[in-house]
């Protein structure tokens, strides 16, 4: 299946839950609403022609206006690749965990919680991970985070 065929198949088979975006520069990129996340994830994994069983990456982005969580998945048997993202506003920053569908998501979601402050429901193990044990300076990867020894370099 080529990338365009994949895009058309996904659009037609998920009755509108996956809306295509054109920001993806190589692989197809879709947008999902936070409430549909678990249905879409289960559908992608169990569909007979797609079988997306390998979760490559979960990345959180702070664009300055909202949060985005980007899921990158791949299919081992069919050699396919797909990305989709969920947009969250700053004051409602919570998401469901997908670790029942892809167990690899456990640590990725823990890191998203720790560095961005996005609450992950049904995770079970949201504890201190990468930062020191006595860290009290907030969530460092947010755009509005600052510290006395953090130097912002100019464009030169």
């Amino acid at each position, binding site marked *: 299946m080529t990338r365009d065929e994949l895009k058309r198949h996904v659009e037609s088979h998920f009755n509108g839950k996956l809306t295509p975006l054109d920001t993806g520069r190589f692989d197809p990129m879709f947008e999902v609403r936070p409430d549909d996340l678990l249905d879409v994830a289960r559908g992608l994994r169990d569909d007979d022609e797609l079988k997306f069983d390998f979760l490559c990456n979960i990345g959180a982005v702070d664009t300055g206006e909202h949060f985005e969580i980007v899921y990158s998945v791949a299919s081992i048997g069919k050699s396919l690749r797909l990305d989709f993202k969920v947009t969250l506003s700053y004051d409602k920053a919570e998401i469901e965990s997908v670790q029942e569908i892809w167990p690899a998501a456990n640590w990725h979601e823990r890191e998203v919680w720790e560095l961005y402050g996005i609450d992950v429901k049904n995770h079970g193990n949201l504890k201190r991970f*990468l*930062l*020191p*044990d006595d860290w009290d*300076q907030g969530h*460092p990867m947010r755009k509005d985070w600052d*510290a006395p*020894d*953090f*130097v*912002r*370099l100019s464009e030169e």
Partner: protein
Amino acid sequence: MGVIKKVPYYLDKVPGGGIMSTSLEGILSHAQACSVWYLLFGTACCAIELMCTGASRYDFDRLGMIFRPTPRQADLIIAAGTITKKMAPRLRRLYDQMAEPRYVIAMGGCTINGGPFYYDSYAVEKGIDHIVPVDIYVPGCPPRPESLLEGCLNLQKKIKSQKLPDWHEK
């Protein structure tokens, strides 16, 4: 006796052979410098260069330096690699567990002042000299094995020039 002709300059030559005299400091510090055992402590990229320096081509063993896995049997910590704020108390604890006389070599840019992570890393300790007292700094990112060997030879020179009371006051 042929040996007398080859003794190092600081040993007095006694005519007739048979007895050599030197100061206690001289012989003890010479013996100590030629057998410094280092702790296998490597966190990041410099650890690979430390491994290469200890391996076949650039050999640490010819200087008398063998790696030891525990600080109780080591004289030297070669702090190779970035030390983060989470790791800093552990480095201090390892240093405290070593028996005196003990030495520290700061290998690589990250241990000297933070290296490439100096400006804007929120989790890196910018230099280890506010955690442990450092004897020799070896710059580089990562330093070549020859630089590290020169650092160790400088350490040997430093040890040989020590006076006895220095050990107890460290």
